[in-house]
């Protein structure tokens, strides 16, 4: 018997005035899975998360979270999820402990104890007023409130935005462990590195529509005919570009890096021929069969990384 997904979305749409913020979107997230939402600013990532949390009312469509159908003002769903918004604003006059208690109102007392413990592990001074906290500390406080409740689904909007690399790594590790314990996490982010690191699946969104859904396998398939050649400087990369073009291969310049399309027939042989070409400057590194997310993003959206 197949288990129903932790998050099930069918035909979810939302319009703000004349703007279709969310075209009918379908989505499934299984228990134990981390799905990354990727898209440029204004693409509908936050609207999707807000609709799922019942913070914004949907116009149409069906949402089921942890087996419960989203209805009315969404309180039935919010009891079964944690939602952490992208904006970091808090009540400066409250202490960290007071802010946590405020955030976790409606949850049980144990949740507050867990959140306080986690905040202390993260080094947050809970007795100090939130107005003295840095941006990163406020973000960590929200993180503690988002992961403390014992729920099966977490909706996290740019959870690691503004954090330093060490803090980000710590939070990502905790998220991975949380998912490994069976929770479903839907995470929006602009950081390809973290998405690549923790997400099991990626959903690309643009103009409120789901553009593409990628798994590690589908990304590998897309990367099969691509090679990335890194050069020490731009002039060397430019001369390499000329040499590659003369061999009849298509390439795109990404600064001092070239993304070469090797063709679908026998890409490995094409790569061998390319590297053996006498007029090709020697690259400092060659990556084959792995498509960096930034390149996939550029391929899908035709622009630079978000």
């Amino acid at each position, binding site marked *: 018997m197949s288990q129903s997904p932790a998050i099930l979305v069918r035909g979810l749409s939302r319009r*703000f005035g004349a703007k279709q913020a969310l075209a009918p979107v379908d989505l499934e997230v299984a228990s134990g899975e981390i799905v990354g939402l990727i898209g440029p600013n204004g693409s509908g990532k936050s609207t999707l998360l*807000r609709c799922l*949390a019942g*913070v*914004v*009312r949907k116009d149409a469509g069906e949402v089921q979270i942890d087996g419960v159908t989203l209805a009315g*003002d969404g*309180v039935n769903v*919010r*009891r079964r999820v944690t*939602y*952490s*918004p992208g*904006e970091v*604003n*808090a*009540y400066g006059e*409250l202490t960290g402990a*007071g802010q946590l*208690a*405020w*955030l*976790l*109102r*409606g*949850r049980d007392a144990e949740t507050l104890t867990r959140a306080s413990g986690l905040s202390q592990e993260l080094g947050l001074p809970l007795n100090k007023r939130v107005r003295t906290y840095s941006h990163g500390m406020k973000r960590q406080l929200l993180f503690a409130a988002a992961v403390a409740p014992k729920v099966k689904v977490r909706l996290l909007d740019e959870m690691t935005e503004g954090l330093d690399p060490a803090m980000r790594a710590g939070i990502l590790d905790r998220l991975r462990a949380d998912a490994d314990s069976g929770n479903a996490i839907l995470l929006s982010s602009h950081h390809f590195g973290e998405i690549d690191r923790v997400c099991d699946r990626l959903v690309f969104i643009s103009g409120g529509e789901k553009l593409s859904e990628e798994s590690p396998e589908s990304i590998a398939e897309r990367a099969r005919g691509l090679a990335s050649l890194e050069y020490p400087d731009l002039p060397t990369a430019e001369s390499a570009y000329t040499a590659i073009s003369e061999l009849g291969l298509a390439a795109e310049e990404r600064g001092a890096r070239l993304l070469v399309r090797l063709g679908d027939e026998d890409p490995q042989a094409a790569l061998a021929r390319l590297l053996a070409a006498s007029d090709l400057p020697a690259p400092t590194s060659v990556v084959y069969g792995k498509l960096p997310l930034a390149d996939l993003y550029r391929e899908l959206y035709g622009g630079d990384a978000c």
Partner: protein
Amino acid sequence: MERTLRSYLLPSLLYALLLEAMLAAAIIYWPDFEENIDTYGDILPFESVRKMVESISDTGVAAYVNLQHFYKACNVLGTCAAVFFAVGAVAGEANRGTLELWLSRPISRTRMLLERYVAGALAMIVPIFLTTATIPWLLEQVGEEMSLSGLMLCSVHESIFLMVLYSLAFCLSTVTSRPMPVALGLLFVTIFQFSIYLVMEWTHYSWFRLADLDDFQSILRTGSLDASICVPLGVANVALLGAALYLFHRRVP
């Protein structure tokens, strides 16, 4: 509720102290006022105000207290309090960027809004009742007396009147993210309404006709609230609260 109550407590206390100070000053001044009442009647510029003084001259300290406490202090300060306590309820959260956090907690929107509504309403109304309760004692100090029950009925009438403005400001708060322009706009309209009350030709267009000296004197005389005023005000209140709930349920962070 804890943060909400705390944020209303100090302003409410200040408002109560201000009301009490105005009330005490007015009552202490009563013997002098009574002595010179005819002179005041001659020098006051507006006919409407002269009529109020005449009413005091005819009925004594009760009209004076109604004028000073309910018509002047509670109407003026109460209006400011109603706007102040209501307008930031939702718009204040949006303005400081905490609305989404507030809405993302596992609490129904109806409960969220009603908690704020009740907390603000209590912060506005309780000082009126508390200060009114001190009137008999203050009057004793100047050798006068008034019945507390009649004064409490006047407080109920004043509260119902102010609640309409409170509910209006509260309703507007659910649709805006900028509390300050709404507050200033409402206060401007209120000042305008207060001004036209003083002009005999326009006085009937002022909403302060619904809580003026005649109304409070009538309550003291009959010993009951005027249903022809209180019922429509109550209905308006319920309608505005219903509209606020409807709009808040559709509010986007």
